[in-house]
């Protein structure tokens, strides 16, 4: 049976991880390669690197980092952040990234999803959607949730599926950073409406939240950052707990 995936997410700036990471026995906590190797060893199923470099030099350094991750890590990984063209994606895939994640650039120019899936295949095109509820309606937001749009989450998700997205990474801005659990109602609706995998993001605080997002939210994968980085929830322990709850995981 296809297993549910656990995906640690690392924020990258100028080729280094940002946000605190607190692992014992790590020579260099800022080195994404070291961290990625550690996660792969501890049972992570995939990794996501979110590039938040603002400058061209920073982005070039990220490419070099992608190359080093591909060289040393034996599980799949996705790179997101600042991707807006075929050339951007080509460069990342050439360096060994398995998938790319696009967000604002898809909202600004939805044809990009068609172009990328046609050129590189749907399997490597993840569309990330940040949304929050306004008057009870889930609205898509841009720039890390700071800019609201009029677009409805479910309509936009359906549209990008039809345009060739291979996967949706849905972050609830209402839940992100709260550690109160994932947006399971919206996730379950996405999973029902769409026929591509859905990654849950935003709100992970404890193991029960992961159990809930797979059982109630019908998510195919769950992504989190701080709970993994600070060792609050060791990946292996999480997967053992999921298995005890009859959720299929790779152990």
């Amino acid at each position: 049976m296809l297993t549910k995936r656990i995906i640690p997410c690392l924020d990258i700036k100028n080729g280094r991880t940002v946000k605190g990471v607190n692992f014992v026995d790590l020579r260099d906590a800022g080195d994404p390669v070291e961290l990625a190797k550690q996660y792969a060893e501890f049972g992570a199923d995939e990794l996501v690197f979110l590039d938040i470099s603002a400058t061209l030099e920073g982005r070039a350094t990220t490419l070099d980092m992608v190359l080093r991750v591909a060289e040393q890590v034996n599980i799949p990984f996705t790179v997101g952040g600042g991707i807006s063209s075929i050339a951007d994606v080509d460069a990342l895939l050439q360096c060994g990234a398995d998938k790319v994640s696009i967000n604002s650039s898809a909202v600004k120019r939805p044809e990009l999803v068609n172009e990328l899936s046609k050129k590189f295949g749907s399997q490597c095109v993840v569309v990330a959607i940040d949304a929050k509820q306004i008057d009870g309606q889930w609205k898509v937001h841009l720039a890390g949730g700071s800019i609201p749009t009029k677009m409805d989450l479910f309509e936009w998700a359906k549209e990008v599926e039809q345009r060739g997205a291979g996967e949706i990474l849905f972050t609830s801005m209402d839940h992100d950073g709260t550690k109160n659990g994932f947006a399971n109602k919206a996730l379950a609706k996405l999973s029902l409406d769409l026929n591509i995998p859905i990654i849950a993001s935003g709100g992970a605080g404890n193991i029960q939240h992961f159990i809930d997002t797979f059982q109630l939210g019908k998510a195919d994968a769950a992504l989190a950052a701080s709970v993994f980085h600070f060792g609050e929830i060791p990946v292996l322990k999480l997967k053992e707990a999921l298995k005890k709850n009859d959720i299929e995981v790779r152990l």
Partner: protein
Amino acid sequence: MKLVIINYGAGNIKSIQFAFKRLGVNAVLSNKPEEILAADKLIFPGVGEASTAMAMLKESGLEQLIPTLKQPVLGICLGMQLMCESTEEGNTKGLGIFKTHVKRFDNDVKVPQMGWNVIKDLKSDLFVGIKENEYMYLVHSYYAQHCKETIAKTDYGINYASALQHNNFYGVQFHPEKSSLAGAKILKNFLEL
């Protein structure tokens, strides 16, 4: 050991190269017939769309060459699918090495299948030291139907062939280069065939 990755413009070749590098073997990229013929072992990769990939193979003349190869050849993902008789993706005729057809998953499952699933009923030297129900990383929307060349099976809605073998030709639907230590073991087994 002269290991060549057949380079016809398809796929995430870097990951395969790196996976072999971790095993201490340098894999050379080539589309030159003389280099391909002189190799000890060959990898036939492929990620992307079948009819486009097949068109690239035809253009480079590799379509004729590959079925005549005598060394061990390992097709990965779309590479394996192109070694079959045909695929529904883009209504494409394949190389006809494996006597089976590639179909699209029905919509009663999410398509693409993306993630880790198990391989079972293993029967090939490729799987020496690999336990039944070992996890492999898969990303695909199309699957090969069973035939007498099936050497591994996987369930996703239906039960399908996740690996095939015909004489010196091997094909795996999963990505051994991305499948952690077990995947690396399969690549090592291939090198030792």
